């Protein structure tokens, strides 16, 4: 078999070797509990502080505003339920979009059951929400607007900067939450300048371990804790800190900040798209035009070939891709994102997601296009018979 090519980086990424080393070092030698008063504890506390500062500096925010969680899902839950509970006296209306990740959508579904009202805004064919729609949806009792930065299935980029600005111009100024799990480390994010109050990020999408994430909370924004206990993370998120995860997160961010060329992913994507459209002219790109979407996500359909069939055919040849989001891929119904951008059912069923990382190579892009071309030929033949 040929070399394996991993192109499911929007689902999760391999841990970077430097990160793995830092994680191991932490578990073996710096295993103290940051709350302990002795030297082992102080050492852990110092690491915790350094990592908080590193992540804050990558976002250009105050370290005091970075709160570690068990991942992107928990960060989204904390942002949404935490805001809803903290502001329930001011109003019970929230705004989001139809294309959010399940960790946002299902959290809002839960709030609806508890008596909140939620507006789910539509998106255009490229998967982009209109700032005007956001403006029009705002009511006097709107307490929270939650909009993702990059969509995990089709890579559309939401105009969060513009939305942030318009929200800050509102009288009652709803809290603005951005799920930046897919964009952190790949696109510029400036929470302070863009008027973002809450921002979720996750380690395992940027070559840090699974099970670590963070929520940025702008100073002065009230969040009701979800998880009570020993008062860690200033009482916002109790529980013994996942120190190896935190240290790994910090190392991954250091690597991204210091050693990675941000333009690289767009170059890879450009090669992939060019080769793919040349070899498989029938390929349909779902979502935004490749150069307008996120640098690492490409959703494509091949008419007449089901996504799962394509996925397994590619896997046989050593290429690993995703269908839709990993979280819902086991359930088998149509992706809510493709539905929201008006994809026809047969095209949606044919969608696969190719998602890149800084560890992929240009040659892998060419090989992938070639292998996809082969698979399409083989499968088309099969379908016609």
């Amino acid at each position, binding site marked *: 078999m040929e070399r394996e090519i991993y192109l499911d980086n929007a689902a999760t990424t391999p841990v970077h070797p430097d990160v793995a080393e830092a994680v191991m070092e932490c578990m073996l030698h710096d295993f103290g*509990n940051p709350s302990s*008063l002795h030297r082992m504890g102080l050492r852990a506390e110092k690491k915790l502080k350094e990592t908080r500062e590193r992540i804050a500096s990558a976002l250009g925010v105050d370290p005091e505003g970075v709160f570690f969680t068990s*991942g992107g899902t*928990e960060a989204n*839950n904390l942002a949404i339920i935490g805001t809803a509970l903290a502001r329930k006296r001011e109003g019970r209306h929230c705004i989001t979009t139809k294309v959010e990740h399940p*960790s946002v959508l*299902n959290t809002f579904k839960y709030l609806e059951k508890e008596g909140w009202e939620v507006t789910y805004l539509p998106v255009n064919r490229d998967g982009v929400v209109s700032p005007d729609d956001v403006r029009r949806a705002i009511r006097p009792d709107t307490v929270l607007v939650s909009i993702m930065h990059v969509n995990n299935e089709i890579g559309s980029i939401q105009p969060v900067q513009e939305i942030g600005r318009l929200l800050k111009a509102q009288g009652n100024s709803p809290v603005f939450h951005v799920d930046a799990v897919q964009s952190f480390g790949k696109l510029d994010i400036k929470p302070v300048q863009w008027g973002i109050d809450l921002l979720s990020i996750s380690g395992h999408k940027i070559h840090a371990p699974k099970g670590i994430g963070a929520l940025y909370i702008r100073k002065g924004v009230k969040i009701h804790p979800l998880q009570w206990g020993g008062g860690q993370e200033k009482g916002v998120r109790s529980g013994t800190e996942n120190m190896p995860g935190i240290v790994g997160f910090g190392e991954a961010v250091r690597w991204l900040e210091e050693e990675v060329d941000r333009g690289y992913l767009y170059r890879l994507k450009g090669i992939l798209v060019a080769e793919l459209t040349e070899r498989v002219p029938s390929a349909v790109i779902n979502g935004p035009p490749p150069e307008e979407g996120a640098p690492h996500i490409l959703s494509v359909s091949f008419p007449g070939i089901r996504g799962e069939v394509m996925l397994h055919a590619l896997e046989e040849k050593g290429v*690993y891709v995703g269908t839709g989001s*990993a979280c819902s891929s086991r359930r088998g119904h149509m992706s809510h994102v493709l539905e929201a951008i008006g994809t026809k059912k047969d095209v949606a069923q044919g969608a696969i997601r190719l998602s890149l990382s800084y560890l992929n190579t240009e040659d892998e892009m060419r090989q992938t296009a070639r292998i996809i071309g082969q698979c399409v030929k083989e499968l088309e033949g099969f379908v016609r018979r």
Partner: protein
Amino acid sequence: MQRRVYMDHAATTYTKQEVLDEMLPYFKEIYGNPSSVHGFGREARKAVDLARERTAAALNVSPEEIYFTSGGTEADNWAIKGVAWANKERGNHIITTSIEHHAVLHTCQYLEKMGFEVTYLPVDSYGLVYPEQVKEAITDKTILISVMFANNEIGTIEPIKEIGQIARERGIYFHTDAVQAVGHIPVDVKDMNIDLLSLSAHKFYGPKGVGALYIRKGVKLHPFIHGGAQERNRRAGTENLPGIVGLGKAIELAVSNLEENSKRLTAMRDRLISGVLNSIENVRLNGHPTKRLPGNANFSFEFIEGESLLLSLDMKGIAASSGSACTSGSLDPSHVLLAIGLPHEIAHGSLRLTLGDDNTDEDIDYVLEVLPGIVKRLREMSPLFAQHKGGKHYV
């Protein structure tokens, strides 16, 4: 070089080499998302399944009843809030104890604000909860009883089986925070009639940031974290794959060596306790003399600030704690020590030494060698000591 002695295993343990070895491939090689359908995902899923089986075997339950979480705190929060919200039609009364970990206590206090009623049972001077009192506290509105398996500060082991039986007879859900017990003393969920049980890997030589909640089949509880369909739709969030693998290995190791380790630690603990009680005056042992965790020793020294004691020990290379790790840094005395009846000033002078696999007899010798001198020196500096010499003593 100075001797380094780590005696704070109840705060956290190091991660064992065998555990690390097993985790390592899941960072760089088998790094798939367990929800992905391709080979990387399937391999990851297999690893999660194996960890689930190992955890279930350690507790004598079935794998479908194990749900992985981000730690003990999340498991406690989920169990209590999850039962409260899912069963509020049946009643709004919860019974717990006054010596629980803050993960339980603060969750219960939050529920009180939301309209639930909570009974915080008292304990005796050893920190024991009485099953009779549990029974008396039950009303027709009681939906949950939550009693910790073993206390994290004073090490007292509670009569879980008896309480479980009462709860089962009355049809009330029974949760136990077994974060300090699992891997250290026998825990048989079936035999003890436990409906929900919290555990945390970093207390038994696994990694931090991963734990589990056992949920008996049929128990009604709401999800705590919403999102993807992970953990059979009950706990959303991409699984902490290496952490879960580490938990599985650590619990298997801990349980297979449990008897032997417990014997070794108990002997060391008892030598430490009698050594301290025999060589230092005005000191008391907190917690039960025999119904206590194998590695736990907790003392109160009159006329001394626990923090000064900790710092002095730290300078001698001994890592210890004054109460639970979470509350150190706060100036309030431990709620557990107050609950067993210690006055504030005595509670302030307490020291928790928790032993673990890496401790040796020489470590005990070393502590017994340096501790009396430190206590003596600190007392000489204490105005209280001068005043109270010959006066009233609590110990």
